[in-house]
């Protein structure tokens, strides 16, 4: 199916564990983004990527690692999960010619 998908949709993990959230888009969009949504904070940018092998930090990058070896994939890794990383994570993509971002359905992550 065309679009942007995220997996898993729900994840429970323990403090200190590494967890990777996957994001895949089929539009060949140049730009991809990771956001977290927390009550009282709205959507905050974690990392973004302008193209394969090009990534930049956003507003809240600490504790996260990203990579982009292929245009269509943009995984987000929590190297050692903490309770403060409990959140809903959204991946988004956009074409270089437009500014509208298209969001995936989100991953709800709980760190116990």
């Amino acid at each position, binding site marked *: 199916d065309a679009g*942007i998908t995220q997996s898993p949709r729900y994840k429970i993990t323990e403090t200190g564990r590494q967890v990777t959230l996957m994001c895949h888009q089929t539009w060949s969009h140049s730009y991809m983004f990771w956001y977290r949504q927390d009550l009282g*904070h*709205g*959507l905050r*940018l974690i990392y973004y990527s302008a193209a394969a092998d090009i990534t930049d930090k956003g507003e809240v990058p600490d504790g996260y690692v990203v990579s982009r070896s292929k245009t269509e994939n943009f995984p987000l890794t929590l190297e050692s999960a903490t309770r403060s990383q409990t959140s809903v994570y959204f991946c988004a993509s956009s074409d270089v010619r437009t*500014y*509208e971002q298209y969001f995936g359905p989100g991953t709800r992550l709980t760190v116990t």
Partner: protein
Amino acid sequence: DQQVKQNSPSLSVQEGRISILNCDYTNSMFDYFLWYKKYPAEGPTFLISISSIKDKNEDGRFTVFLNKSAKHLSLHIVPSQPGDSAVYFCAAKRTGNTPLVFGKGTRLSVIA
């Protein structure tokens, strides 16, 4: 420092009436503004946008107004429908392919 502010966390409107959602920004370098709509357990979806060279953009029941001197934009929904009940995020960006900056969102409830 919050660059995009949505000062009303929630808004209730009767079906058929006008809904007005407000957004203020502080960064004078922002030149493109967007509104996103988000239902529970789904990713945000793009609704409407406006460039700083315009002061109004209309799409069906949705109109966005931009007042650059006041650094203020608003989204008007006329007539409001129960299906419009969602969280609405205002977003802004600077020139070029720079990331969006989101407000914290306003929850709209349209009462039948």
